[in-house]
Each structure stands twice: as structure tokens, then as C-alpha cells.
């Protein structure tokens, strides 16, 4: 009880801090320094229509690299943690998925994968991009896992995909260091004309890599987690 009271008091002070922020906050009327720059230069410089993707993939590519690394890391560690898990043998057979789910999944999964692919490759033009698409791909995996809990994905494949895509990402970045303006500069390839699929230099490629990597990592996490599952 005292604990809760103390927590409340502390959070109250923290809340006061937030309140001060809230009161002091006035929404910007104009774009800030960097925001304005992106709005002005993205299209001409990088030839990307989707500013967000441009920022993610190029301007703040290092963040993105770090962030796929986060996923990679989590996946690896989840694997580590669960490596010591119980042998699968001791599991009770789960309830078989219903007819509806089984069929539905067979119908949906291809569509999901297609949508994912679309979202990924159009990342630089329309809302979407590597992450979003990757997440969609992974949802496909999830659906499969739900449909047949005992299905085993080959971790080998997943890890290969994520490793390769990750390594390529880094490699491309380094290429940028050599052939273009710097690490992760997407102007290795011609910028092309705004709005076309094959434009914005490397951006679509990197999106694809990110998509694959994210998808693979989510999948491997889901897979490892599901392997631990014993209902």
C-alpha cells in the first residue's frame, strides 16, 4: 500500500514535469530547420516522393541500420534465451486448427505476401516502406503458425535471409562511402524521375532489403516463441 502511495507521489512529480512540457508546448506553424530542408530538398536531391521513407532510408539511414540491428539482436537473443528451452518432445499435441482457419490461411497467405511485397517496393512513393511491408510479411508467417501450430520453419532459411539482406545493406552503405557522398548515400544509382517505381536511386533496393530483413526477423522471433508454446 505504501508502495502504491509512493509510486503515485513520484508519478505525480513526473506528471508535473510533463504538464510543464504540455503547457509550454505550442504546435509549430512553420516547418522547423530540418523539416523545411527535407521538404525542399528530398525530391530534387533524392528523387523520393515519400519524405518519411527518404529520411528513414537515407538521411537517417544510420538509425535505420541500427534499428534493423535491434531486431536482429532481439531475434538472436530470443533465440539464445529460448535455446535452453525444454525439448519439443514433451509437448502435448495442440488442438487442431479449425477447417475454416486452415482453408482461410491457404487463401490469405499469398495475398498477404503480395501486399507486403507491394508495400515494400513502393515505399519511396506511397505510404509504406520496408518496415511496414516487412511487418505484413511477418503477419503472414503468424497466420501460418496459428493455422498449424506444429509447423516448423527452417530457421536456417530465415537466418540466411536476414543475414544476407543485413550484410548487403551494410555493403551498399559502404559502397556509398566509396562511390557517392558518403555512407548510406542512396545516389549510387541514378535518381531517376520523381514518382516512378525505379527512381530515387538505391531507395527501393534498400527498402526491399529492410523489408526482407524485418520480415525474416519478425518471423524468426514468432517462430522461436511459438516453439516454446505449450498450451
Amino acid at each position, binding site marked *: 500500500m505504501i*508502495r502504491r502511495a509512493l*509510486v503515485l507521489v*513520484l508519478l505525480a*512529480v*513526473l506528471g508535473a*514535469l*510533463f504538464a*510543464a*512540457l504540455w503547457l*509550454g*508546448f505550442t504546435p*509549430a506553424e512553420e516547418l*522547423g*530547420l*530540418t*523539416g523545411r*530542408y*527535407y521538404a525542399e*530538398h528530398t525530391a530534387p*536531391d533524392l528523387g523520393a516522393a515519400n519524405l518519411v521513407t527518404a529520411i528513414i532510408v*537515407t*538521411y*537517417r*539511414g*544510420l*538509425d535505420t541500420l*541500427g*534499428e534493423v*540491428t*535491434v531486431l*536482429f*539482436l*532481439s531475434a*538472436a*537473443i530470443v*533465440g*539464445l*534465451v529460448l*535455446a535452453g528451452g525444454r525439448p519439443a518432445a514433451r509437448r502435448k499435441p495442440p488442438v487442431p486448427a479449425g477447417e475454416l482457419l486452415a482453408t482461410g490461411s491457404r487463401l490469405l497467405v499469398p495475398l498477404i505476401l503480395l501486399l507486403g511485397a507491394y508495400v515494400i517496393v513502393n515505399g519511396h512513393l506511397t505510404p509504406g516502406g520496408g518496415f511496414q511491408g516487412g511487418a505484413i510479411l511477418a503477419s503472414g508467417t503468424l497466420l501460418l503458425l496459428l493455422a498449424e501450430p506444429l509447423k516448423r520453419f527452417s530457421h536456417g532459411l530465415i*537466418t*540466411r535471409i*536476414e*543475414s*544476407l539482406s*543485413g*550484410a548487403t*545493406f*551494410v555493403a551498399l*552503405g*559502404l559502397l*556509398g*562511402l566509396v562511390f*557517392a*557522398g*558518403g*555512407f*548510406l*548515400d*542512396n*545516389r549510387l544509382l541514378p535518381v531517376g524521375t520523381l514518382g516512378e517505381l525505379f527512381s530515387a536511386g538505391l531507395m527501393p533496393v534498400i527498402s526491399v532489403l529492410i523489408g526482407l530483413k524485418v520480415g525474416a526477423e519478425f518471423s524468426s522471433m514468432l517462430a522461436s516463441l511459438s516453439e516454446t508454446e505449450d498450451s
Partner: protein
Amino acid sequence: MVSAMPSPILIIASALGAAFLLGLLDERRTRTAWAITLATLGFMGLVSALWLLALATGQSSTVDVFTAGTPPPFAINLRMGLAEAALSTLVTLTGLFAAIALKAPLWAHGRRAMAVLLILVMALAGIILTRDLFNLFVFFELAVIATAGMILLADDERALSAGFKYLIVAQFFSALLLIGIIFAYQVTGTLNLDGMLPDAGGAHAGVTATQVGAIAFFLMLIALIAELKPFPANGWALDIYESAHPAFSAIFSAASGAAALFAVDKLLAIGGDAWLGIATGVGIVTFLVANVLALPQRNDRRLLGYSSVAQTGLVLVVIGQRDILGDGYLFIAFGILVAHAVAKAGLYWLSGLIAGRGLEDWAALRTRPLLMLAFASFLALLTGLPPFPSFYAKWDLVHLLASHDRLALLGFVLFGTLIEAGYLFRWFGHAIKRAAPADSVACPAERLIPILTALVAAWGLGYLWGALSGQANLLLSLPLLFALAFVLLDWLPARIKNTLAIAGMLGYFALTYQDYDPLRLIFALIFLVGGAIVLLASYHAPGRRAGFYPSAMLMYAGLAMLVQAQDSFAFFAAWELLTVGSYFLILRGKASEPHALSYMLFSLGGAFLILAGFALAAQGQLQLPLEALGAVVEPLSGWVFLLLAVGFMSKTAVLGLHIWLPGAHAEAETDVSPMVSGILLKAGLLGLFILVMNMGKQQLYGVELTHLMLWLGALTALAGNLLAAFQEDAKRLLAYSSIGQMGYAVFGLALMNHLGWLMALMFVINHYIYKSMLFLSVGGVAKRTGTRDMYRMGGLITLMPLSFIAVLIGIIAISGVPPLSGFGGRWIFYNAILDSDARLPMIVLFFAGPIAFLYLFRLIHTIFLGQLKDEHRRVREAPFWIVLPQMLFVTMLIIFAVVPGMALRHVDAYISQFIPNGALSWQGLTITSQYGYWSPVSIMIIIGVIFMLVFGYLLLINRRAQKVKQFNIAFAAERPYRPETTHFAWNFFAPYRKALGFLMLPLVTRFWSTLTDLLNTAGDLGRRLYTGNGQTYAIHFLVFVVIVFLLGMGGQP
């Protein structure tokens, strides 16, 4: 040049690439994976090192690395400057060697684990390099996750919960950090650190200008500081330290700590000086509290954890003081940081070799001298002893703090360091003294390499810092090198090493004797030549006598450097060296563990007072010539004098600071006791000499400080003599008598007149001779009889005649009875006090005088006279090598008694430079003062002649006397048959105890033990704060945030 350098981005890219590629490897190809990991880490280290070299040598200047081909603030940029290079080198190399040490678990867990390690090191490097706030956040998250992963490598099941606790608190950190970042962006319109500074374009006036910005900045700062494990928000870290794999703890302590510190430093750089207070406050509180809480720790890794927390706090203090440190900032900060990193990494790697987790289990290292050396070096590194970087750094830090009147902070820093030294050296004592486990430590190469690298790094950095410091590089000073040489020669048999040592000391004296003034010459004679004579006794020791000579020579090196020292730095460095050496020396004694510790603590405490004194006196300079002490002006001079005097008197064991001495001197080995008593004590007197000669009389609040010293000296003499009279242990008796003698010397110095100083010097010489002699003879007797309790001995005169003669001469000399040299001291003493107008303290001294007879008579009677015990009937004379120096001392005493002028008249003349009036005149054989006269030679002759006449007469009338049996005595109505019951020895002065026993209450001891108990209890209660519950730790963090918010920002954003 820059173009030739590999891009810093490679440090990050290579790690990532390797980490990803590891995934392609087959699970089973562990060896390859490990090789790749090591290669990558090595490459990262190489790149960083290249940059460090280029930047340090000025071949290259700080570079900004753009990404995305877009300039900041629109894209992320990295910066590689000197600090960045140094830190990334530190981080990557730590990672590399940790990877080597982690071989076993890495192989067990496979490539995934290695990828995690790579990414961890990469993330830390990123934290150091990046100039973008959000990027910083990303790298921090990476580091957090990777850490959580590395924790799993532990074989300790409990690590799991530790990791989870870490994840919990880390969530709080990142939430606050993110909110802070986004609002900082909202205020400044950029995420670039440099963009946060007041904008030239006038877009904004710096992030902290507005209220929102200030709060945002506070949130970021607090979140980053939290990564430094500040008190109280550090329970999670301690749990990790305790449970994680030690090789990883090394990274966690050394690398992660360094990276986080630099992040805070970067942030504070944009926050402005207004925020430094928070850093300082948090830092010093953490430093003090963590050290106190460490006191009751018994688990080595957790202890190291507390120490890490403390050290990080200390660096945070330095960061908080950057406003006054100026150019010295990097030198100081890195000096402490690097020392901490190397030492902690090394210690954690060492702990990987130790089977048990108790502090005593480190006794296992005893079988491995090399590892023991490493252990000692690391501890010295942590406590900031010379010649290591932290020593130079602390020296500068203290001086700068003093020159800017941040005295409270200065005091806290020194106090905290003292506490840390306390538990660290207690630990070392355990390792040296406690029973070693049967199975010696197994050290496979991959465990050994990192440790030895750390050891090499420690000494290398010591040299580097010595070269960088404005001071003399200690590792270039001949005496120290000579002493260190004995570390390498330790495999030689003791006799050869002894010969080398003696030759070296005499040689060094021959080399330097011209450059001393008469006073220093006397001290140099005692330290070097006297030391050599005492070393003769060491020939008796058989075998290799491992560890003895490095310690002894270290002490003598310190003494030699002390006499030569002309400026405060050299003096202080020498002081620390001789302290350390003598500590190791004393620690060798059988039951000396607690005494060695208390010696070390009192000495270090005193040393810190001296340091503070010098710092105050330096007034902004980083050192001052000792002569310049005189130039210090009121009211500062009073404080300087007080600090220095107390510091020096802690070595001369003045009353109140004396409790370490009896144990330390009594428990030491036979030939060590004379070194630490006859020789080492003089170091303090030399200090006092220099002090009073340069500063003269000083006042504080109208109190004449030298007058206080008079009282202290007199009371010390009284207490020392009284306590000596009631010892049953012969060596303790001598030790207490040393306290008394030093009291006389201090008194003489404090008289502040010509003869007073002369008397002090007389005591310096006399005490060296007779106390060394007595300790040797008593030690010899103890060796033969197997006990130090006098009442167990008796009647040894016929069996050990030479030792008896030595003791006889010794006690006649001490008691000051003519014709021996002690009388000279007394005579000068009387003349000196006639010159002085402070009369009350003398009364105390008059009282102390005759008491000397009590313990002296007891010493000789209960050991050599009275009834011989049955078990001693076959005792032989002490070993030749122990007797030889005694005989030398006997001759010296007699020579010095007949012609004291040899030594004294030069010093007499020298003193006249400071105090002209009151000098003695040395016509012919008579020494004349303005009050009296004294002719040693005629006294000797007259007494001799009378004695011979009477003796001849007795022979004439009673020549056929023959020795009768032991019990053939006129005894009242019975025939004694048991020596035990007939030898009147135990509690010899019972009536005296009845009369004055009340003066002997151990008040001082009680005071100090109460103090230490209080600290320990405080630590024991305080650490209950860490309940082990992750939520509680999270609450601690919030409490920390709130407190800092309320105190730091006055709750008024």
C-alpha cells in the same frame, strides 16, 4: 593525412557486417565464427588506435564524418576527435580481450552470442562517435539489448533475473530519453548535438534557453546519467556485476561506463555550465555512498561492482568540474577513467580465475606471483598510488579544486578515496594472509592473456601519464626503477638479492651525497647507509624470500627520493611510494594483517592531508618548491601548516594517530622491525623538519600551532613511555618506546629554537641506532626462544651474551645515563627548554623521562637476567647475521657518544642559517651552550677510570669467586626449584599500575574503532536499500529523478 586514414564509420560498419555474416555460418563452425569475431574486434581496435595515434601526434585533426552524403544537421554525422579516438580504442580493445576471456561461453552459445558481443562493442563505439541525439538513443537501445544478451552467457542462474531487472529500468530510461529528445527537437528544430547550441542564425537560443527546452534537457541528462549507475538508482547494475560472467562485467564496467560517461559529457557540453552542478552533486554522492556501502561486502564481484559505481561517480565529478579544470580536463578525466577501466577489467578477469566468491578465496593467487603482482598493480591503480595515471590525475584535480576554493568537494573526494583504499587493501590483506585453498588457480592462456595485457597497459599508461604530466616522470627515477628491477629478479636466491640491494643503496648514496645539505645528509645517511647496515641482518634468511626485496627496495626508493625531493610533487610521490613499500613489508609479518591495514589507512589518511596541504599552498600552480612553503601568507598558511603537520605526524605516530604503530612494528619480521622503526619513522621527522624550517611559527585563530605540537609531543612521549612499561611483549614494548622517542623529537622541533632542532636531530640519529639494535637483538631472542612474551624468557645472559651486551648498551643509551650518547640528547634538551618560554609542556616531559627506566629495566631484566627457564637451557646465541649489525651499532653508539661533534656540529652550523642565536660552541672537547657545558670525552675517561679502579679493587679482595647454581640464593625458609615461580616478571610494575593505571585507558583505540564501526554499520544498513526487487530498483530511479529535479532544478523548471 586524413585521407589516408580509414573512415571511422568502418568501426561501426565492420562490426555490423561481421555480425550479419555470422548468420550465414553453419551452427557448428564455432572456431571460424570466433576467429571472425576476434578479427573484427581487432580491426575496430586497429582503426580506433590509428586515429588515436594520428590525433595525439597532431598528424590529423578532428574530423566530422557525414552520412547519406548530406551535411548535418540534416543527416547523421559522426565525429572523431582525440577523446573519441581514445575512448573507442579503450572500448574496442576491452571488447577484444573480453572476447578472448569469454572463449568458453562464446563457444558454448555459438555464433549468435558472438554477434551480440560484436554489436555491443559497436553500439558503445557508436555512442561515443555519434553527434546526433536520436542516433545516440538508438545506439543506447542497442547497447541495452546487447547487454541483456551478454548477461545470458553467465553460468550463474541468477543472472537471468538480473537481466530482467535491467530491462525494466532501461525501459524507464529510454522513455524519458525519448521524450526529452523529441522536445529538444521541438525547441531547436534539429536533432544534431551541435545544433542544440545557441544558434548563430538566431533560429533558437540554445536548447536550454526555453523552459520546455530546459525540461527536455533535464530528461535527457537524467536518463543518460542513470546509465552511469548513480546512487540510489544502481541496484540493477550491482546485481549484474555480481551474477554476470566476469569477462563481460569487465566490458560492462570499463567500456559501457566509459561510453555512457562520454555521452553525458557530450550532452553537458551543449547544456552549459549551469548544469555542471548536477553532475558534480550526483557524482560525489555516488562516489561516497558507493564506497561506504562497499565496506561490508564479502562477495568479490559485487564489491568490484560497488567500486565501479564509485569510480564512475568520481569521473562524473571531474566532468562536473570541467569549468575549472581548463586544459587539464582531459588529462584528469582520462587519468581516472583509464585507470579505473584497466584496473576493473583486469580485476574482473582475475576473478574469473578464482573458484570461490569470498574475498578470502583470492588467497589462491598466492601460488602465482605474476597474478599477485597484477592484483597489487590494479589495486594501486584504483587507489591512485604512484606511478599510475590516477595518481597524476588526482594530484592535478586536488590542486585545481584547492585553487578554486572547492574545498568541501576536495575533502569528500579524498575521504571517499580513503574508504575505497580501506576495503581494497583489506581485500589484499586477505589475499596475502588467509589460508590458500588447496587447489591452485588453473589459468588457461585465454584467461591469462587479457589479465597480463591489462597489467602491461597499467604500467604503460603510468609511464604515459608521467610523460604527459608537467611533473617529473616517476617511472624514470633511478631508485624506483632499481626497486622495480627486484620484481624481475625475484627468482634469485635471497643472499644474492641482498647483496645487490646493499650495493645499490650504498652506490646510490655515493652517487648523490654531494647534493645534500647537512640536514638532508644525515637523513640520507640513515636511510641509505643505515638501511644497508640493517639489511645485513637479512642475510640470515634462507631461500628466495619471494616478495621481500621488491617491497623493501620500494620503501628505500621512496626514502631516497624523499630526501632528494625539492618540490612538493616529488616529495609527495616519494611519500606515497615509501608508504606502499613499507605496507607490503609490514604485511609480511605472521599476524600482521590487521596492523598492516591500519598502518596503510593512517598513512594514506596522513598522505591525503599532506596532499591537501600542498594543494592549498600551491595556489593555482600544480606544484611548488618546498622552500616556497615559507611564502604562503596568512590565513592560508595556518591551514597549510596544520594539514602538513598532522600528515607528517601520522607517520611519526603522534598521540592520537599512534594506534597503528605497536602492532605494525611488533608483528613485522625480525629484520623488518628495525627498518620500519629505526628508519621509516624518520621520514615523518624529515617532513616536519622541512615544514618548520620553511614555515616557521604559524597561527590559527590565534593559537600558536607549534605550541600545540609541543603539547602533542610531550603527551606522546608520556603515553608512549607509560604504555611501554606495561607491555608483556618485548617487541611491543620497543614499539611503544618508539612512540615515546618520536614524541621527544616532535617536542624538540616544536620548541622552534636552535637547540630544540638540534635535539630533535640527536634523537633522529640515536633512535635509529639503538632502536634498530634493540629490535634486532630482541628479534634474535624471540627467534631462538620462540616467544615474544618477556615473562616466558629469563636468565638468557649466559646463553646469548652478545645480544645481552647490545641490549645493555641500548638501554643505557636510551635512558640518557652518561657516558653514552643518550645523555647528549638529554643535555641538549635541558639547554633547549631553558631557551623556550613554554613551560607547562615540559613538566609532562619531565614526568615521562624517568618512566623510560621502568620499561628499559624490565626489558633487560625479564629477558636476560633472573631465572633461566628449563625449555631454554639449550638456546644458542642469535644467528651471526643478526648479531653482526648489532655489534656495528654498539660501536657506532660509543663513537657517537664520544665525538657527537662529528655529526652535530655541521648541522649546528646549518641550523644557524635559520636560527642564528643559541648555537653551541665546540672548543676542543667541550661543548658549551649559553647555559652549561659538557665534555663527552672527559666524562667517558673519568667514568672509565673510576670504574676500573673500583673493579680492580674488587678483584683484589675477591678474586676466587665462582658461579653458583641457579637456585643457590638466600631464600626465606624454602628452596625454590621452579624458574616459573621464582622469576619475578609478569605484570612487573603492578604497584605502578595500581597508582597510574587510569592513564592507560585505550581511549584513542576506542575512538577509532567506534569510527570504523560506524562506517561499517552505515554501509551494512545502507545496502539493505537494494532489496533485489526490480520494481524497487525502478522506484529508486524515479526517486533519483525526483530528487535531482527538486535539488538540481529547484523543482522550478
